[in-house]
């Protein structure tokens, strides 16, 4: 089974107001059976990355202007749309944030699953129905056979997300892209869905690209983490290193702003990052985080490169690159 390897992916938005850099030189890779969490706040480009990988970018205004999305030996970014149709939903699948609106409300759950089976596996009739029921059982829906004939509005949000996952894994994809799969769900249901994703990954060995803003979810799920800010990957590394010794001041800010279960009490003050995420139209020159950064200095007027500072641990920050990694961790 092949993993996913994104190399130098850049996406621009061609709008009336000018060309905006939505993604700049994003490189990521996820190995089979592993989970890469893509973390960042709204507008940082994490969903844009997912859509670019799936070739589902809203065109216009968005367009891939550079880079490759390698799935094994195939560059998805260069595939003609006709061939991409055979890849999407088969080799690479995606689940979305809002399960209720991701399912077609006037088609039964069963028909929506069987549609994928018919298209990619050539299964029809009895065989497709049996496989669809199997899939529903696999994602933990009881009484699967009967549920096939239900319409989505009869199911809760958690159930709909399970159905979405069933559709996504129907063809045993090599890569599953999950864009905020639990953000719209309650915590107890979120725990169920995360557990399910872990179990399915262990059983099928698929690579999981998990997009989330929730560092708690990252800690629970990820093997590797990539932190994005203003369309760039600013830090990347193994999950333990990211949490224990974050290198980029933005990552440190995010971690500081996240109340970390159990220890924080009423009278501790959360560390906050001043200001707010800049819009693409008014990105500062150089490091986009510099205006909010406590460590910013003259050099930050230029764009810092993503450099390896510890084993498998990269950061795009002049301040972090100037000092040893363990000193940064202590800060």
């Amino acid at each position: 089974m092949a993993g996913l390897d994104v190399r130098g992916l850049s996406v621009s938005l061609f709008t009336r107001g000018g060309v905006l850099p939505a993604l700049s030189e994003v490189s990521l890779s996820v190995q089979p059976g592993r989970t890469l969490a893509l973390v960042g706040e709204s507008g940082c480009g994490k969903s844009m990355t997912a859509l670019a990988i799936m070739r589902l970018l809203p065109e216009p205004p968005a367009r891939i202007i550079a880079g490759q999305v390698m799935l094994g030996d195939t560059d998805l970014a260069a595939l003609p749309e006709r061939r991409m149709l055979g890849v999407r939903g088969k080799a690479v699948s995606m689940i979305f944030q809002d399960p209720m609106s991701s399912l077609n409300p006037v088609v039964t759950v069963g028909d929506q699953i069987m549609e994928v089976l018919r298209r990619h596996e050539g299964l029809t009739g009895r065989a497709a129905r049996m496989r669809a029921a199997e899939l529903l059982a696999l994602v933990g829906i009881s009484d699967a056979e009967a549920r096939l004939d239900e319409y989505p509005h009869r199911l809760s949000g958690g159930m709909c997300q399970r159905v979405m996952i069933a559709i996504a894994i129907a063809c045993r994809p090599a890569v599953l892209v999950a864009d905020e799969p639990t953000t719209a769900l309650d915590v107890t249901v979120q725990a169920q869905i995360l557990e399910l994703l872990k179990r399915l990954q262990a059983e099928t060995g698929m690579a999981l690209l998990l997009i989330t803003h929730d560092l708690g979810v990252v800690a629970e799920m990820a093997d590797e983490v990539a932190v994005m800010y203003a369309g760039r990957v600013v830090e990347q590394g193994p999950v333990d290193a990211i949490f224990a010794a974050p290198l980029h001041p933005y990552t440190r800010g995010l971690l500081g702003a996240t109340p970390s279960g159990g220890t924080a009490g009423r009278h501790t003050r959360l560390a906050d990052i001043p200001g707010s995420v800049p819009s693409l139209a008014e990105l500062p020159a150089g490091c986009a985080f510099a205006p909010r950064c406590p460590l910013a200095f003259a050099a930050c007027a230029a764009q810092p490169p993503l450099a390896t500072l510890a084993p498998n641990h990269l950061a795009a920050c002049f301040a972090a690159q100037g000092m040893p990694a363990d000193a940064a961790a202590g800060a």
Partner: protein
Amino acid sequence: MLLQARDIGVHFATPRGLLRAVAGVSLEIDAGETLGLVGESGCGKSTLGRAIMRLVPIAEGELLLEGQYITRLEGTALKQVRPKVQMVFQDPVSSLNPRRRVGSLVGQPLSVAGWSRRDIADRVAELLAQVSLPKDAADRYPHEFSGGQRQRIGIARALALSPKLVICDEPVSALDVSVRAQVVNLLKDIQDRLGVGYLFISHDLSVVENVADRLMVMYLGRVVEQGRAADVLARPAHPYTHALLSAAPVANPALARTRQRVVLQGELPSPVSPPSGCAFRTRCPFAEARCAAEAPLLRPATADGQQVACHFDFSERFAAQATGVPA
């Protein structure tokens, strides 16, 4: 006591029958104190907040604000009480009228209260400074601001008439992590300075534990557990509270790998036809025959005021698990 609610019940007529969105909820909030209210969507926490605001009709029970019965006030009498209780809403987009300038939005409660134009302008400037918005914000429209700034506008509006109690209904749920901390800190600063009481409604335990003095957990319209926030979080006594704490992801990969998790099965039952006896029994890992027959009442769980609505005593067992040490 700033606010007292006794046995509040809120009912809605739905096509499928009477929905008891809130049933028999009692609570107290003191000046300068924060009561955290947690639960999953559909547990009635927002409805309770709106009932205290007198935005939805209260079917049962009594509300006392500074000792005055406000449950059934109408007209002018209600209008006189309103300034004392204000609300910060969840959605920073839909809670601000897009066609009004910020100055007009923040000054609205003052204009309703009959302030003069001049006084309003002065007070608005003061309020904007209080929530750290630039002076020229008053002349701009809400859409020119980011989510966090819009939430500051909403907070300024809520503070305009110097309320005694502010109901914060998921005030940071729609915000980015880095901005969330700013708004939480702002709310805390305001409380320290003005001594307002907060009812802080949230589904996110990690936020509530950072702001709340006391904590109330709701399930299907009823309170299942309450007490000092630190106690409830460290020694949950109700299986539901324990499951909520356990389900909340912790931002610590090492702990996430080692700790024991209870993943609740199933989802919230329909509030129109709740299960008999204890409403939580259909998802409770410890449910027994008694739970279906008999609804548990809120009873003291410990000596220092923690209360729980459960037939059994789990606090010891949960406390052992919460610290990560296997029981």
